[in-house]
């Protein structure tokens, strides 16, 4: 009885799903889905830059992270927040306590007037998180044509191939290719938009942020080309997204080494235990 009902139910589901397959196939044949400009012209991140933290034994390039922080604080921070990162975290970039204190004190964060209790601002302390450029989302949206500049703390983890994505995006601003206009005559770049094939919708609201060599002055003598600044800030944002990345890999090796050793021991122990079983049958 169960089998009879089962066969009927099974045939029922099969019939419906094959029917829907037939309808879908008919629609696909008579009304094929049209390609969109995003499908054809969107590019995956360039992966030709190598970073020190990649690979199983990666480590931070402290000088690069410091340069990246400088790019962030002098360029990106005008519009993008970094709210998961506190000034105290900069100790991991090799800054001394005094430097961190001075760096924090150079930025202002919202506070209260200690005498009146009214909203005011005060110099930041090392325990404060990086201040946001806008007081709230409405202000951020209003100042940027309705598009809120995203927080950058986790950007490199929030996109596929995040580090390469940020680098590609920063160096990917260009004129739309001629083929685009040919294939998709309806495709237009709205006012205030910028063509960038690494951005999912091809048109990004952000104007090219890094445009000229020397836009940021590096203290360590590295030549601040646009490409160099883009690499450095991508590396910095990888650190902000996962400050424990290098520690994680460093912890991984001894753990895996120990487990390999223990597993080999377990293999021999298992063999020796089962050897007893085999012999008992003799």
């Amino acid at each position, binding site marked *: 009885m*169960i*089998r009879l009902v*089962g*066969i009927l*139910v*099974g*045939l029922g*589901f*099969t019939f*419906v*799903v*094959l*029917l*829907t*397959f037939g*309808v*879908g*196939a008919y629609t*696909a044949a008579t009304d094929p*889905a049209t390609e969109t400009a995003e499908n054809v012209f969107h590019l995956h991140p360039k992966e030709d830059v190598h970073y020190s933290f990649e690979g*199983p034994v990666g480590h931070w390039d402290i000088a690069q992270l410091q340069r990246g922080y400088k790019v962030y604080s002098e360029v990106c921070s005008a519009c993008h927040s970094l709210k*998961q990162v506190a000034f105290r*975290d900069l100790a991991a970039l090799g800054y001394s306590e005094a430097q961190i204190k001075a760096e924090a004190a150079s930025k202002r964060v919202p506070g209260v007037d200690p005498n009146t209790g009214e909203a005011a601002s005060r110099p930041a302390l090392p325990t404060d998180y990086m201040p946001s450029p806008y007081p709230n989302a409405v202000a951020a949206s209003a100042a940027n044509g309705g598009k809120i500049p*995203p*927080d950058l*703390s*986790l950007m490199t*983890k*929030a*996109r*596929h191939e*995040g580090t390469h994505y940020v680098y590609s995006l920063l160096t990917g601003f260009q004129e739309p290719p001629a083929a685009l206009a040919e294939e998709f005559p309806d495709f237009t770049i709205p006012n205030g938009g910028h063509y960038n094939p690494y951005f*999912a919708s091809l048109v990004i609201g952000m104007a090219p942020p890094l445009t000229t060599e020397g836009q940021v002055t590096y203290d360590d003598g590295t030549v601040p080309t646009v490409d160099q600044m883009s690499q450095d800030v991508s590396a910095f944002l990888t650190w902000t*997204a*996962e*400050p*424990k990345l290098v*520690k*994680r*890999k460093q*912890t*991984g090796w001894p*753990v*895996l080494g120990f*487990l*390999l050793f*223990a*597993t080999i021991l*377990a*293999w021999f*122990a*298992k063999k020796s*235990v*089962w050897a007893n*079983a085999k012999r008992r*049958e003799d």
Partner: protein
Amino acid sequence: MSFPWAKNYEPVNPVMKFMDEKLPLPRLVYNAVGAGYPVPRNLSYWWNFGVLAGICLVLQIVTGVVLAMHYAANSGIAFDSVEHIMRDVNWGWLLRYMHANGASFFFLVIYIHIFRGFFYSSYKAPREMIWLLGVVIFLLTMATAFMGYVLPWGQMSFWGAKVITGLFSAIPLVGEPIQVWLLGGFAPDNAALNRFFSLHFMLPFVILGVVILHIWALHIPGSSNPTGVEVKQESDTVPFHPYYTAKDGFGLGVFLLIYFMYVFFFPNALGHPDNYIEANPLSTPAHIVPEWYFYPFYAILRAFTFDFIIPAKLWGVLAMFSAILVWFFLPWLDKSPVRSGHYRPMFRKFFWFGLIPCMAVLFYCGGAPAEEPYVMISQIATAYYFLHFLVILPIISSVERPEPLPFSITEAVLGSDDSAVIEPAAKAAE
């Protein structure tokens, strides 16, 4: 119950004697997973995955309880509290990555355990109850994993909660009120997050309870084995300890190696980048998918795109739930007297060339965008899925001619069994 030759627990010292008289817990352990449990001597490594699943459950409970000490189930700060764990809590990054990847590996182990059961027909009499409880565990684990994925309050968390509770809105008339009731609001927010956290904390202990029933039920008939021939005599078995504790120990080592390789070197490979963006009720990610372990069922859900009598959405929901509910009826759908796929030529072909590719396709299509050709491919796979369990299994179990079985496990292992000769002779003499 146990086999008559099972070793009896003998407390060796006065403390254990005292315990044995007042609360015979050591005896219980001895008989459950110790030397007092005789197990078929021919179990393959496919039989490691039951113990591994139990270890995964413990791993998830331990790391989960610890994470709950730092996590804040409030939609305003949940996302930040997870980042707090990743950045500031001592070893927080390790504990969170262990928990997140632990969920994936738990499902990997469960899937292998279930498909072991399919191939060796472990669901057949006298083990129907073990199987039914196992399906219950699977359903509870899916619910727990889904609610756990909502907790970080990223974009995928939010939209996953919205879409999955939206399934209930497919129910005619009462559907939408049910969705609103489940969420405690019109969209996922603080109320939903808090109840999901509460249930996500509580359900693993329910799972643990059902696991204990699952193991209890297992000890009534004893473990199945790759030949599917029941245990006949002492030479067919070895005591669980030390034989299978040693084998499970080795299996655990291999499992932990692969698991920690992911935790330390590819911790986000099984997750989705969008979940590192805080939940935003006003913007849906371009391509929303559940976690990989739900892909096959998600593919079945999306396979129905045509309103036939009832809306396509309801067909999808019905089919998705039926896809798992079907497993409850397996013991009665498959009536072949032979258990093991090794001795069932037709069953074996449908398993390797039908069910396994079908599942692989569903896994692949469930993670792909809802575009052609993925939808059409998953429709074919969905059709096969239902045909396999509901039509093919019942029919082949009647028409198939199984290959000859070994007389006993001993014969299968050693090539001969003295009692195979003696017993029929004795019977003839009667």
